[in-house]
């Protein structure tokens, strides 16, 4: 089965992939998208569902061959007995807390540095609205965020927000994400921290 998602805006390709995988009992489905971030988003989603992913780029289009694991539905994909608690940090502003912005900027900087020293780090860190200024060029916390990424923490920035603030080409750490991924991360979290 091949599904053409060219010309579809994010997160439509991910939603289509989800529906296709749900309907599929076993075997493979091929999804075609026309841009790298859709390709990455679909790939990430499929892998999170335990699917195999094989991507081929052809004349600017991406053909993603998604293989569904044999054992039943996506939710039944074997999960190890003990699941670690999932804590997500939802960073919806470049400032920490409400009040003075200069203080808020300092607190955010110190907060992210402190996270680095914590044994149980939140994962992923989701940056949304003016939070994306923290992951983009000119941010004073890039070093901390890179160190967190190096420690295995996923750094997700809302693509719509990057676009709004004119930062699409200026993302300097982590990946561009979409509302679908963000909403899913929030829903799957055991704890959400909103600094």
């Amino acid at each position, binding site marked *: 089965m091949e599904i053409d998602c060219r010309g579809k805006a994010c997160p439509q390709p991910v939603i289509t992939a989800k529906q296709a995988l749900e309907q599929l009992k076993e075997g493979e489905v091929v999804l075609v998208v026309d841009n790298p971030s859709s390709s990455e988003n679909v790939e990430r989603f499929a892998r999170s569902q335990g699917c195999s992913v094989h991507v081929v780029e052809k004349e600017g289009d991406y053909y993603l061959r998604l293989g569904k694991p044999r054992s039943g539905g996506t939710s039944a994909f074997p999960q190890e007995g003990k699941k670690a608690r999932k804590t997500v940090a939802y960073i919806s502003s470049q400032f920490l807390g409400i009040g003075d912005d*200069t*203080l808020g900027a*300092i*607190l955010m*900087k*110190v907060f992210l*540095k*402190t996270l680095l020293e914590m044994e149980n780090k939140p994962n992923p860190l989701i940056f949304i609205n003016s939070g994306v200024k923290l992951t983009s060029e000119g941010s004073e916390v890039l070093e901390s965020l890179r160190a967190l990424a190096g420690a295995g923490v996923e750094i997700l920035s809302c693509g719509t927000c990057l676009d709004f603030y004119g930062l699409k080409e200026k993302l300097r750490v982590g990946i561009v994400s979409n509302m679908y991924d963000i909403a899913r991360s929030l829903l799957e979290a055991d704890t959400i921290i909103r600094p």
Partner: protein
Amino acid sequence: MTCVLLFDSVHQVMRAEKLLKKRNLQIDLIPVPREISSDCGVAIELPSEIKEEALHLIGRGGLSNVICYRRIEGGSFEKDG
């Protein structure tokens, strides 16, 4: 090597940060290391080579009561001066 400057309040940290950044000194704001304590949770960390210059600027800016620590190898701290 770096040193960590502690101040009495976050207002003083903010003033000091402004003074030092105006001179393009390479400084960093950090949470006050747990081994050290102060009334304020934010400190300034800078390379030891610019410590004297920084302290001079801070002093001229009217900020007193600055406490300086050296970050020594292994991540611990030693009071400096």
